[in-house]
């Protein structure tokens, strides 16, 4: 059976479609806004990450309640804080490409003439925002539950710096690795196996900087500054590598 072409509809299909290649910034905003809109609608990542962070706090609380009264939590609090952040971020990163993979949305985006690195930047920025939102809730709770009874240093407010620098690195490396593993079978385990070793230098630096900040009375000590510089250097290198490799990683 052949159908007579409808002249009006034919005009409608090609009705003076004017296309002007949008700026990189506007494509970034469009991609980033979609991620935020999607999350606001489903709250899939935020709720699972937030709930997981609370569970970690609960488990740590139970474990530390058994500790001897002479036990000084300040000596290990940096490590405990980052255990919570790393595993919470891992949970979120595993879900960060769910909507893109569900019905081929990512392929739809890849068909658009745009620099593939913009996809990376937008996804990384969205992952960073979600991680920071969870940290803004979980970190004050961490300090309230575990640090309120202990004498923390006067410079504790500086902990925001390793938190921010560490989160940027986690979001950058995590987004790249989540892209690689998102199409794989057993991606949850695979991401964890790749993610932890790759972020180890960053983790070492930010745990040092955080521990020094919590325990040390001297604001901006040399140990703090050198750890932070190492973490920032890692961020710059990994962001550049991820930016450069993304086109290769995302195309078959």
């Amino acid at each position, binding site marked *: *059976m*052949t*159908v007579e*072409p*409808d002249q009006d*509809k*034919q005009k*409608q*299909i*090609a*009705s003076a*479609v*004017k*296309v*002007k*290649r*949008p700026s990189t910034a*506007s*494509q970034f905003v*469009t*991609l980033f806004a*979609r991620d935020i*809109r*999607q999350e606001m*609608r*489903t709250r899939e990542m935020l709720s699972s990450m937030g709930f997981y962070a609370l569970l970690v706090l609960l488990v740590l609380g139970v474990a530390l309640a058994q500790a001897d009264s002479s036990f000084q939590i300040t000596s290990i609090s940096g490590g405990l804080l980052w255990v919570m952040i790393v595993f919470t971020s891992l949970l979120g990163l595993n879900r960060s490409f769910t*909507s*893109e993979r*569900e*019905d*081929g*949305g990512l*392929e*739809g*985006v*890849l*068909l*658009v*003439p*745009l620099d593939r690195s913009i996809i990376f930047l937008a996804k990384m920025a969205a992952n960073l925002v979600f991680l920071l939102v969870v940290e803004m809730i979980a970190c004050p709770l961490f300090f309230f539950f575990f640090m309120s009874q202990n004498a923390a240093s006067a410079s504790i407010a500086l902990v925001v710096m390793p938190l921010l620098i560490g989160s940027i690195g986690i979001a950058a490396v995590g987004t790249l690795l989540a892209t690689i593993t998102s199409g794989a079978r057993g991606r949850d385990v695979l991401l964890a196996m790749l993610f932890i070793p790759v972020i180890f230098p960053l983790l070492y630096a930010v745990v040092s900087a955080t521990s020094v900040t919590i325990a040390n009375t001297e604001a901006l000590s040399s140990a703090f500054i050198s750890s932070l510089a190492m973490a920032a250097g890692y961020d710059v290198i990994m962001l550049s590598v991820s930016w450069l490799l993304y086109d290769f990683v995302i*195309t*078959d």
Partner: protein
Amino acid sequence: MSQTLAIKTDSLSKRFGSVRALDSVSFELPSDSFLSVFGPNGAGKSTLLRILATLARPTSGSAQLFGLNLKEDADSLRSQIGVLSHRSMLFPDLTAYENLLFFGRLYGLESPEYRVNEMLDLVEMTGRKHDAVRGFSRGMTQRVAIARALLHDPRLLLLDEPYSGLDPGAISLLDELLEQIRPGRTFIMVSHDLGHGFSLASHIMVLSRGRLVAFESCQGLNQQQFYDLYHQSIEIGK
């Protein structure tokens, strides 16, 4: 022949490790043609389409689309290519309108809101435009997917089993839409439905184990001859 070429491939190959998904495929397709690609599972049909859509890189060989090199001019070519597949390439939690607006803005349409409404009207989805795609039937989702594929008015439409999972009503609507959008466009459609694929085609291609075993114009070819050609080609491919 005065007709210009839409696609020209030269020894296009794709390997996944030791597996040859596409093995030295060369063909030329004139503009405004409708090429139906047939072959058994694993013949390389979807791989060919993914390479032409710039979603996959060929391991070797080259391809030209509208005179532009697929590798070097991929970015320019993407604005001329639309893809409709059995997957909608939409975001299920966003509404039909939000999905199309998102793609319209990425493509840089001058007035994306107007174009999106126009396309929703074309696929008769205006009444459901503010509903999330997740709640749509397969046929309704495919209609929105058609609107997405046509949003930027592409010259080349790549269709990867677009009828898969559609009910008879949705199939006839898709047929009608394909007929409407056909003038001035080149189509390549991968299909398992020999009869349907042949009825739409101006050219047919048969792939087997990644190799091109038949490429013919449909002029002077009736359905029975085509079936015979298909089965002979598949035998040769084995």
